[in-house]
């Protein structure tokens, strides 16, 4: 599990290391967390992984109607990619429907 988690964090590292736009959303997330508007990402990931097991391959934070929402893409062991939306303030899984 730890290896998985480490791989996951590395993956996130890769995401963060991507071009300028990627670090812009990281800045947004940091500011939102500092203001107390969202929960930390590890809680979000834990909740998402409980709902849908697999590797988180994409993380996206969006502000929708004044609410912060995480959109995660999780790759299951069967190769199926699912999109999981999580309420960033409560860390509650909103829906885990299939990939868009």
């Amino acid at each position, binding site marked *: 599990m730890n290896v998985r988690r480490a791989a996951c964090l590395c993956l996130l590292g890769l995401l963060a290391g991507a071009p300028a736009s990627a670090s812009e959303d990281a800045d947004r997330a940091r500011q939102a967390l500092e203001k107390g508007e969202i929960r930390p990402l590890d809680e979000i990931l834990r909740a998402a992984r409980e709902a849908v097991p697999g590797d988180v391959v994409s993380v996206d934070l969006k502000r929708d109607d004044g609410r912060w929402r995480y959109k995660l893409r999780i790759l299951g062991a069967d190769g199926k990619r699912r999109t999981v939306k999580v309420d960033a303030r409560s860390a509650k899984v909103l829906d885990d429907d*299939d990939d868009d």
Partner: protein
Amino acid sequence: MKRNSLRLRLGLAAAALIALALVLAGIGLTVILDQVLDARTADALDRTAKLIAGRVSLAPDGSPTLSREPPDPRFATPYGGLYWQVEAGSHVLRSRSLWDRSLDVGAGAKPPATIDTTGPDGGRLIAVVQPLTIGPQGAETELRVIVAEDRRNLAASRTTFLRLLVPALVALFVVLTLAMALFVRRALAPFRVLQTDLLAVHAGTRTRLPEHFPDEVRPLVADLNRLLDVQERALIRARDAAADMAHGLKTPLAVLDALARRTDTADPTLSAEIAEQARAMGGQVERALARARIAASGDLRRRSCRVAPVAERLVATMRRLPEGDSLDWAVSVPEALAYPGEEGELMEVLGNLLDNARKWAHRRVRVTGQTESGPQSLAVEDDGPGMSAAAIAGIGRGQRWDETRPGTGFGIAIARDVAEAAGAQLDFGRSELGGLRAELTWPGR
């Protein structure tokens, strides 16, 4: 170190075993390194495949698109060594590095698979295949993400590792072999001490070996000491027995001699015969006594004495004896010449030889020594009549042969006994002076 040395043999065996162990360790480490490199590479490729899987989406025409390409610059360099490819049915999206080629891994690869394939420039690739299903329920699309790396990148890491490993193993070999050499030296130390103590016993400075040896060597030392003791006791007993017998016979012989003289007038032939036999027996008694005297030297102890002073002293004595004063005595013995026995033994041997020469020489007696490399020798020559071959052969059997001169006639036989007990050889031949040449030879050291 001699070829037969236990230390050399143990050291060589240890070195061979250490070398074998280190070679095996080197092979094992290389195998492990290959596995680790493969696993690490596959892990990195797997992560890139998942990154791509997270970013891939389908265009309206069903062709895959990436929102952002993976960041490694090798993906953007033609034949850069790092490649990805996304397959969605007949639509295929490839990294720029693949340039004019594509990755071909076959359809049968089971997820998640690590396989070997051929790269665009002919090099071997290690590839990870990640199957992917995207799209809403009921309208799913099967995709395949392939990420591959050229094995030559791994070979570079392997070369670096080997370049460090080989000198490290060689250094380890040197250190371990030196440690083993020290260990063997330490382990065999009691035998070196034993050797020194045995030399002391040989030299006569010590009668027994000390008992302070390790448990493994102590039984040997104890047995050696017991042997030394037994031998000493046996020698004393034999010497005492021989001496007792010789002394016991002397009186009856004297009586016999007296009886012979008393019957001299009545029956001269019988009297002469009895006297003759009594004298022969007396000679044997002398010989037995001489043997008993030298018996003590037959043990482990190896003594030696310088020849020149003994020769000088004996010749000086001979000059004072009848028939000795008129002779021309020439002594030329090197100072370094050493006889392998006690001084008393040498006096017994040389004294007999000189006395014999004194009795037979006309004018000259010559004593010469030889101390060059090889056998050492000491010769006594005279210009007398010499001996026949038959007479020389008779000495060995203890035969009395010089019946024309006074004495027991056993001097030469005794000299030979004593010389042989010390490991020297006594030979007779014709001297260039015209008479007998008696030569003592013994191995050089």
